[in-house]
C-alpha cells in the first residue's frame, strides 16, 4: 500500500466531512489491489526490491572490493575465497556483479526518468497545442525515430564519449520519443474528453487544464512507460558496454563484463554466463512487473 502513497491525493474534505467508516478507494489504491493479485508481478517486485537493497548495501554485501585486483588469482573458478571465481585481473566476479547492479539499475531508472521528463513535456506540448508546435515536435520525433535504436545510441556515445552519465543522456535521448508519442496521442484523446470541456466551460486556462486534467490522467501511462522502458535501457546499456562504448574502467557493468568475458569463454564460462543471467533476471523482473502494472493501471495500453 505504501508503494503508491506518493500518488494519494491530499484530501481537502477529510476533516470537513468527518464521516467515519466511509470506504473510498482512489484509482491507484484500486490498481494496487489488482496488482497485488498478480502473483508473478509481486514476485518480480520483490526481486526488484531485493535488487534495490543490493544497490544500496553493495559495499556491505559484496565479499570483496570489486576493483581490487589480485593478478595472481586471475581467472580462477569458484572457490571459498571467490564464490563465483575471478576475472582476468583476479577481481571477484560476484562483487563485480553486485556492483554492476548499481550501474544497470541507475542507468535504467535515471535514463527513463530523464526520457520521461523530456517525453512528457514534448508530448503534452505537441498534443495540447497542436498546430506549428505539433508539426515541429512531430518532425523532430520522426527524425529521432528514423534511426534504429542501437545505431542512435552509439552515435550519441561517440559524440559524448563513454561514461555513465553520458549513457544516461544517450539512453534518455533514445527513448523520449516513444514516451512523447504515447503522451501526445493520449493528450489528443484526453483533450476531447468532456471533463476537459467542462473545465473550459468553467473558464479554465490552458495551464490549468494541463495541470489539473491532462498530466494527472497521463500518470498511469507515464508509470508504465518508465517501468517498461527500464528493461530496454538496461539492455541498451549492456549492448553499448559490450561494444566498448559504455562505462569507463574499472567500473563494473554487466555488459562490459560479458564483453571482457568473451575472451575467456571456454576457460571460465561462468564469467560470461553470470552477468548475462543477472541482466536476464533484472530485465525479466522489470518486464513482468511492468506488464502487471500495466494490466493493473491501464489495461487498454496493451497494444502499445
Amino acid at each position, binding site marked *: 500500500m505504501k508503494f503508491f502513497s506518493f500518488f494519494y491525493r491530499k484530501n481537502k474534505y477529510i476533516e470537513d466531512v468527518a464521516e467515519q467508516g466511509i470506504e473510498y478507494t482512489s484509482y491507484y489504491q484500486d490498481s494496487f489491489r489488482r496488482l497485488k493479485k498478480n502473483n508473478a508481478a509481486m514476485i518480480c517486485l520483490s526481486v526488484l526490491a531485493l535488487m534495490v537493497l543490493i544497490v544500496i548495501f553493495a559495499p556491505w554485501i559484496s565479499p570483496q572490493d570489486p576493483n581490487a585486483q589480485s593478478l595472481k588469482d586471475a581467472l580462477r573458478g569458484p572457490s571459498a575465497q571467490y564464490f563465483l571465481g575471478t576475472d582476468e585481473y583476479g577481481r571477484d566476479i560476484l562483487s563485480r556483479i553486485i556492483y554492476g547492479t548499481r550501474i544497470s539499475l541507475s542507468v535504467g531508472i535515471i535514463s527513463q526518468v530523464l526520457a520521461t521528463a523530456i517525453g512528457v513535456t514534448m508530448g503534452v506540448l505537441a498534443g495540447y497545442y497542436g498546430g506549428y508546435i505539433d508539426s515541429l515536435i512531430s*518532425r523532430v520525433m*520522426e527524425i529521432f525515430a*528514423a534511426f*534504429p535504436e542501437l*545505431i542512435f545510441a552509439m552515435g550519441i556515445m561517440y559524440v559524448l564519449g563513454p561514461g555513465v552519465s553520458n549513457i544516461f543522456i544517450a539512453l534518455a535521448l533514445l527513448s523520449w520519443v516513444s514516451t512523447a508519442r504515447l503522451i501526445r496521442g493520449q493528450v489528443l484523446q484526453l483533450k476531447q474528453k468532456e471533463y476537459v470541456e467542462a473545465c473550459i466551460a468553467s473558464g479554465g486556462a490552458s495551464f490549468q487544464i494541463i495541470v489539473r486534467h491532462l498530466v494527472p490522467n497521463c500518470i498511469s501511462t507515464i508509470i508504465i512507460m518508465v517501468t517498461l522502458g527500464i528493461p530496454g535501457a538496461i539492455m541498451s546499456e549492456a549492448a553499448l558496454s559490450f561494444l566498448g562504448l559504455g562505462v569507463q574502467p574499472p567500473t563494473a557493468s554487466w555488459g562490459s563484463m560479458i564483453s571482457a568475458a568473451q575472451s575467456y569463454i571456454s576457460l571460465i564460462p561462468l564469467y560470461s554466463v553470470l552477468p548475462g543471467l543477472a541482466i536476464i533476471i533484472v*530485465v*525479466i523482473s522489470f*518486464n513482468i512487473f511492468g506488464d502487471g502494472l500495466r494490466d493493473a493501471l491501464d489495461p487498454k495500453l*496493451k*497494444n502499445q
Partner: protein
Amino acid sequence: MLLYIAKRLCQTVFVLVGITFATFCLINIVPGDPVQVMLEKRADPEMIQQVRHELGTDKPLPEQYINFVEGAVKFDLGKSYFSKEPVMSMLLRGFLVTAKLAAISFLFAVTIGISCGMLAAIKRGKPTDSFLMMIAILGMSAPSFWIAIILQIIFGLKLNLLPLSGLDQPLCYILPSIALGTRYAASIARITRTSMLDVIKQDYIRTARAKGVKESMVFIKHALKNALIPIVTLLGTQLGNMLAGSMLIEKVFSISGIGKLAVDSMTNRDLPLVQGTVLYIAVIFVVINLIVDLSYALIDPKIRYGKGA
C-alpha cells in the same frame, strides 16, 4: 491512396535531409580527425594538410555538406577515406550480408512469433499459454549478444554441430539468425497474443460464431487479419532494429555486414562512410515504415478506400 503515398514520400525526404544534416553536424562535433587516423603515427602537419586537401575536408563545412547532398541525390556517396572503395558498393556489400541475415532472422521471428502467439491466444489461460508466454518473456529479456555467445558455446563448440563464424555456407546462418531473431520472435509472440485476444472480444467475432463459422476459421479468417495491424506495426520497427541490432551479432559471429561497417566507419571517422551508412540505414528504416503503412492498406480496407487518409 496515391496522394497518401506522395505525402509520405514528402515527409520521408524531409526526415532524410534532417538525418543527414544531423549526422553531418554530429560527426564534425565529435573529437577525432580521419586524416590523423589515416596517417597513424607519422602525421606531420604538412602531410595532414596535403591529405586534407586530397579529401576535400579543408573546404568550409557548408560547402562540404552541399557537396554531399548533391552527390547523394545522384546516388554517389563518395569514396571511403580509407578503403578508397565507393561507399555505395561497400554499403551494398554490407547490406547484402546483413539483409540476408536479417531476412532469415525475420522469417524465423515471424513464423515462430505469430504461431506461438496464436497458439497462446487460442489456449488462453491454459498451461500452454503460460508456458509460451514465460518463454517469450525470457526471450525478450536476454541480450541477443549473450544468446549468441551461449549458442556459440553449445552448438558450435561443445556439440560441434554448426559453423561458428562467417556466413560462407548456408548452415552458417542458423546460429546468428536464432540469436538475432529470438528477441523479436518473443515480442511478436506477445503482441500477436494480445492483439488476438483483443480482436476475439470484438462483436464481429461473435457474429462469425453466430453464423456457425468453425472455431479454427474464426481464428484464422476472422481474427488474425484484424489482429495484424499492431503486429505489422511491430514488425516494421523490429525489422529496422534487427538491421541495427545485427551489429552485435555480427561482432560475435565475425560477419562483415552493415553493422560492422557502421562501427568501423565511426571509429575511423570515415565521414563519407558514416554519412552513407546512416543515410542508408535511415532510408531502409523509412522504406520499411512506408511498406508497413502500405501494408495497412492491404489489411484494412478503411485505409485502402481513402477514408482514413
